[in-house]
């Protein structure tokens, strides 16, 4: 899996490409943690899944872990950007979409974290 992180104001945007599973969950966790540790100013996490072809329960677990970190330690919001239908179905089945809002564009995602209450 390829991963990229960048910051827009107090949001961390992480873009994933490929398959999020047992193998890539670890590197994903590490990347987000390093970015968060590197800057106390980050509050929100936008997860760009537009390039993700596959997620299973290990992938969902890794996403949920980041959600908890952002919520409990940063009092921030998490938004998921552009999951493809099969990926979305996995997230839904895991109950993640009851906690996290989904955006179609990055602009929309940034607007959602600004409103401070993205959960549907």
């Amino acid at each position, binding site marked *: 899996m390829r991963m990229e992180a960048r910051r827009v104001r107090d949001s961390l945007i992480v873009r994933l490409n490929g398959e999020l*599973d047992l193998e890539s969950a670890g590197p994903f966790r590490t990347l987000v943690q390093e970015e968060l540790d590197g800057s106390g100013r980050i509050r929100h996490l936008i997860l760009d899944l537009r390039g993700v072809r596959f997620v299973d329960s290990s992938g969902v677990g890794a996403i949920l872990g980041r959600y908890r970190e952002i919520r409990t330690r940063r009092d921030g919001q998490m938004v998921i950007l552009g999951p493809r239908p099969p990926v979305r179905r996995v997230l839904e*089945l895991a109950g993640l979409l009851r906690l996290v809002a989904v955006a179609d564009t990055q602009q929309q995602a940034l607007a959602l974290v600004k409103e401070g209450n993205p959960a549907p």
Partner: protein
Amino acid sequence: MKLPEGIRNQVVMEFPSRPENVAFARTAVAVFAAQLEFTVDELDELKVAVSEAVSNAVVHGYAGEDGCIRLEAAITGDGCLVVAVQDRGRGIEDVESARQAQWTTKPEEHMGLGFTFMEEYSDRVEVESAPGRGTTVTLYKTPARARIPS
């Protein structure tokens, strides 16, 4: 090669219980399964189910140690795909509880959704396990197209 009674085609694979082999296993099964009339969506579902079974063998069965995973994928005479994922690892104490949603023995890292996903994404799931002896999870899936009487 004598195939078992009622089996039309079959592949057997063995590989070490490593995280990097989970993607290999689910993709190889999907490629084999493409011999049946699965839709792209159904192959995606199958990949999730296989991924869960193989990940469990890596994470729970061998708990991160290097063990051997044996995977058999077969096509039955009536067009059903059967995938058996076998480890010779620690086994499951209480299979009935393990299969329940959100039941996990590793709550810090895992969500207990593996079996839930297997159930959701295949037609039937069988679990055979004995503590200290290992676990075999068998997934059954028939293409929906094949089930519509024509």
